């Protein structure tokens, strides 16, 4: 009796049956023990491997793969649901990194730079001159809560069409920072140009308040709120993946919904 076939029924006389059962039990425990050790080792490796941006590299690699999958599937037709004005809820101001400087709309300017060309400086009038888009969408915080918020501003796609140097190919990434560069986000081109990605200057039909990023913030409903940077000071079009404030602290760089 040395094979380990799965027979429906094993019939053996007395002591042989017990011996067979003990043999199979021993064998199962040995296999199970080895599998447990292998699983334990795999878990230790998965959680203990050297870190890339505060995350073990196997997990960082896996999130990168998730991102490629999501990114390949992402389409302009994938929209966050839109809502009516009476469904708007309270939106908690949840982060103040980069908002220390007084929000002085008068002195505010926006630096826009494309790789290899001279940066330009914009004022609020330049944005107000572009077509205005309003939207009421869900704002999903990475913490798990959500709110329905009403925004007004310029589609980033419209903004890019106007201010990105004509005749040049748009690089793969966009990088935005606060004026003091304390807070910064990196975005992939496809998400940045998504029709629901807005450079917002209004919330609830009023100019933005300082704690929500006056005078200009990003609202990108197809990503977690950490990407909706408040009080934008600079926008750069880059061909390499930009840094990201929260990605450096162990979060997914893509953070797409």
């Amino acid at each position, binding site marked *: 009796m040395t094979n380990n076939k799965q027979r429906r029924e*094993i019939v053996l006389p007395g002591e042989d049956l017990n011996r067979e059962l003990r043999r199979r039990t021993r064998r199962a425990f040995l296999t*199970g023990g080895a599998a447990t050790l292998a699983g334990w080792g795999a878990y230790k490796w998965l*959680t203990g491997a050297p870190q890339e941006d505060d995350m073990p590299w196997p997990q960082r690699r896996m999130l990168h793969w998730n991102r490629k999958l999501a990114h390949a*599937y992402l389409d302009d037709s994938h929209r966050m649901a839109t809502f009516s004005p009476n469904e708007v809820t309270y939106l908690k101001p949840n982060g103040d990194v980069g908002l220390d400087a007084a929000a002085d709309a008068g002195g505010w300017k926006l630096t826009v730079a494309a790789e290899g060309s001279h940066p330009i400086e914009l004022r609020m009038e330049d944005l107000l001159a572009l077509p205005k888009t309003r939207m009421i969408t869900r704002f999903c915080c*990475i*913490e798990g809560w*959500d709110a329905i918020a009403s925004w007004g501003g310029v589609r980033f796609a419209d903004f890019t069409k106007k201010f990105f140097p004509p005749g040049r190919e748009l690089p793969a990434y966009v990088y935005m920072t606060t004026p003091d560069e304390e807070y910064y986000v990196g975005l992939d081109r496809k998400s940045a140009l998504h029709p629901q990605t807005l450079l917002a200057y209004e919330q609830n039909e009023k100019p933005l308040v300082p704690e929500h990023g006056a005078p200009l913030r990003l609202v990108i409903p197809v990503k977690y709120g950490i990407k909706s940077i408040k009080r934008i000071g600079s926008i750069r079009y880059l061909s390499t993946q930009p840094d990201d404030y929260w990605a450096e*602290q162990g979060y*997914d760089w893509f953070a797409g919904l």
Partner: protein
Amino acid sequence: MPVLKLKHLRAVRWFHWINFPLLALMIWSGLLIYWAYAPYRVGSFHFFPNWFVSALGIDHRLAEGMALHFTLMWLFVLNGIAYVLYTLISGEWRYLVPRSVSVLADAWRVLLHDLYLRKGQRPPQEKYNAAQQLAYSGIVVMGAGSVLTGLAIYKPAQLAWLTALCGGYAAARLIHFALTIGYVLFFLVHVAQVAVAGWNNLRGMITGYELADDKQ
């Protein structure tokens, strides 16, 4: 005369024992995620009280939880799909899936019997009794529910139709959480039942074979 009867096929045993640590880690990483926004309660009981959070040290670990959750989800889902396909192809589903409404009444009788509220024998059964059929089929449906509600929270833009189907973003998160509590309750009952059933039964899930009397 005692014989060894094959109860659990080898593949099913592997799926079962692989699922156990994977589900445990999904629940664990889920706890790390849930901590960052923990609004649910039943009456005055909050999920989760401070002593629970500090005993397990689950606070301020959102990033770690998300990375683990979105890495291991693939293994959990693949193992679950493989199990369902295997039970369908091997025909094992016939023992697991209830095939008549009498399963409800039978399951009730099993429950009363197991709680020592009803004397006599359990209702006659094949491999699994009616309560087991409901539990083991139900847990697969719950697993599918976790995957769908999970996807609804994970990709509410790209899978907006699914999020809507789940009743919205907040509803999907609540269902996802409730199902997890369901697994914990399932686990408690399951382990208690295994303890009561004894070693021969548990050995069946380890070796595949149960010592049985062959009366035929």
